[in-house]
């Protein structure tokens, strides 16, 4: 196929979107500050182009795609069991949580249901990955605001959770443990007691962070009233997770649209905060870590016995159809829209990851703030680059 000159020009123009921004760096009205793709505060390759008037941001654009790995396309040339390896790497801090909605969607298409024990252990690992993810967020948040020590405390105590995930799945970061119809293995011996000890440790970590970070006057003055998202705006931008609950919207997929996991059989609470500022988002996350440790404790106590794998064929062929399953991942709503044509691999997978929508509010939120507040707001929105770019 040959392209006309006009088509070629159009193609080049579309490719050179970043180039255009670079040209705009030279404009006369105010200073344009280009943050990223390599910038210590974006923990990944997010690019932020902010126009400044002094230290005040007049407008900011978020450029993503520097880490696009084409997972949706790659899924089309993988078989169903192989996809979990890919999706592990989307939100790399809470990897197991990425596998669950995809496996649930495939199970729905195959009309298979995992046995109760598998569902309970799935929920358990799901919450452990939430703790691993969000506890690191708390440390990272402090680091972005200039305090180094809490980051190391977060790394130290996250290790207890990662050890537990590792001893079940064999992988610290990328478990690749979920299977269609259940799980790969059962829990190892003595694991329950160790996990409970780790949860005690994590609750102590939460208390420590509450004193060291959240209770600090400087931290509060940096985050309170900064980056306020009203509930209506938050909903209109499609925010999810703690960003939405921090704006006072009581919405949690674990409670409101629970599929395949056992949250309806547990006693837990959805935390919200009415303020909608950076502090409330961070506060909600801290409470969610606490709540997750309680959920883990309950699951450890009430774990049913039985098989961990349902009867599924050796070679998995998913019947033709479409399914969309979303779960409340550490970062927010994560959904997989799986289209099958009856093959061993999916025909099309659309991944709705939370960070992509969460970061979309940044240009609206960053207008008129000071440069240091860019960091506060981005840190409190809490995105993972792999979750934005996929």
């Amino acid at each position, binding site marked *: 196929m040959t392209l006309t000159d006009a088509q070629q020009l159009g193609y080049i123009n579309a490719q050179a979107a970043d180039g255009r921004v670079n040209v705009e760096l030279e404009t006369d009205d105010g*200073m344009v*500050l*280009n943050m990223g793709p390599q*910038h*210590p*505060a974006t923990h990944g390759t997010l690019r932020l182009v902010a126009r400044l008037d002094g*230290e005040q941001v007049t407008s900011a654009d978020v450029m993503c795609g520097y880490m696009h790995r084409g997972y949706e396309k790659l899924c089309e040339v993988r078989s169903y069991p192989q996809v979990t390896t890919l999706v592990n790497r989307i939100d790399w801090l809470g990897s197991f949580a990425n596998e669950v909605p995809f496996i649930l969607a495939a199970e729905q298409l195959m009309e298979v249901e995992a046995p109760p024990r598998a569902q309970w252990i799935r929920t358990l690992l799901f919450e452990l990955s939430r703790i691993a993810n969000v506890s690191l967020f708390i440390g990272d948040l*402090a*680091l*972005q*605001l*200039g*305090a*180094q*020590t809490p980051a*190391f*405390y977060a790394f*130290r105590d996250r290790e207890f959770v990662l050890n537990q995930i590792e001893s079940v799945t064999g992988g610290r970061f990328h478990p690749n443990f979920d299977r269609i119809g259940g799980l790969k293995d059962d829990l190892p011996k003595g694991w329950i007691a160790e996990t409970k000890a780790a949860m005690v440790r994590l609750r102590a970590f939460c208390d420590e962070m509450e004193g*060291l*970070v959240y209770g*600090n006057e*400087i*931290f509060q*003055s*940096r985050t309170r009233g900064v980056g306020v998202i009203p509930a209506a705006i938050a909903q209109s931008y499609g925010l999810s997770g703690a960003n939405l609950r921090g704006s006072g919207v009581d919405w949690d997929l674990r409670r409101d649209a629970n599929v395949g996991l056992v949250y309806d059989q547990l006693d837990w609470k959805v935390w919200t905060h009415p303020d909608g500022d950076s502090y409330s988002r961070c506060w909600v996350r801290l409470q969610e870590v606490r709540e997750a440790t309680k959920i883990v404790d309950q699951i450890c106590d009430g774990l049913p016995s039985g098989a961990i794998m349902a009867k599924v064929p050796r070679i998995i062929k998913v019947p033709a159809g479409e399914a969309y399953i979303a779960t409340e991942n550490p970062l927010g709503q994560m959904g997989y829209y799986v289209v099958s044509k009856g093959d061993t691999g999916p025909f099309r997978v659309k991944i709705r990851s939370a960070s992509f929508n969460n970061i979309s509010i940044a240009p609206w939120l960053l207008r008129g703030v*000071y*440069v*240091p*507040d*860019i*960091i506060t707001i981005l840190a409190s929105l809490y995105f993972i680059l792999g979750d934005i770019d996929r």
Partner: protein
Amino acid sequence: MISLSVLGVELAYWQVTSLRVLGVLLAVVLPAGAFVYLFLFKMMSFMQSRLGPMEAGPFGSMQLLAEVGKFLQKEDIVPERADRRLFFIAPYIVLASTFLLFSVMPFGPDVYFTNLDTGIFLALGLSSVSVIGILIAGWASANKYSLIGGIRAAGQLIAYELPMVLAVVGVVIQAGTLNLQGIVAAQHQGEIFGFSGIGNPFLLTQFVAFGVFLVATQAELTQTPFDMPVAESEIVTGYMTEYSGLRFLLFFIGEFATAGAFAALAATLFLGGWALPFVSLDDNAMNFIGPLVLFAKILMVGFLIFWARFTFPRFREDQLQAFAWKYLIPIALINILVTMILKVAF
């Protein structure tokens, strides 16, 4: 003609002067090295539940040499659009201001470079010279982060110069002299409510000034929570962004040597300087013990500085300015007023 008797040997003027130059060099390098190793490497690591450097020498004590060697090997990169001459000169201005600070610092009855009548006045004046170097570095780097960092540094250092000077004024009123030796003597010979056992370290009577001085020091050193000029998560270490190799090392030494200088200043003003209680100020032995005493006190102040550095998050630029003008300066002024009234009353 000044002469100094060391172990009974009378030294000539040029010998004394060379010794003093050597002493100032040592005084700059020793606290800087001790701060980096003891506080930045070790104390910070222990606070953060890790070990820090452990491989180079026992407990990583040779790590400093390794770091210096690393920086010396690195390529000295100058950005294409940088103002080369200013870019080269900036770190030396910063370092020079630090060296000059030590020139008025007394380490013992005869261990000093100069003994000016207006020593503390000169020290505070010299400490602001580094702003020029930082501003030059920020401008000459041809980098927006550096420029923001340089301007932030200038605004911050000017804002915190004032509370620092006002805090020192309280001490000067109480000591009745601007001479640093005189301030040491005043603390050694002073008495608290008639009790003269340990003299009167001004920490006890000027504790408000000490607090203000330490906070202002923290800001002058651009240490957390006042590290916006070098905030690595916002503006990528600010004015140092484009510096590498030797020139970065100079900035680094400058930063920690200045920390040493301010700690020495705080130790001299508030902790009694090189003097020891119960030991006469004229004692010749103090020429040898004095530097060690002062060094110990420098480490004590340094501990406070770095403790805060590892604990707090950083302020925002406007909050920092508000903190200086709304809280620190009024507190320092009230302290001066109270000191004056008490000085006249007693």
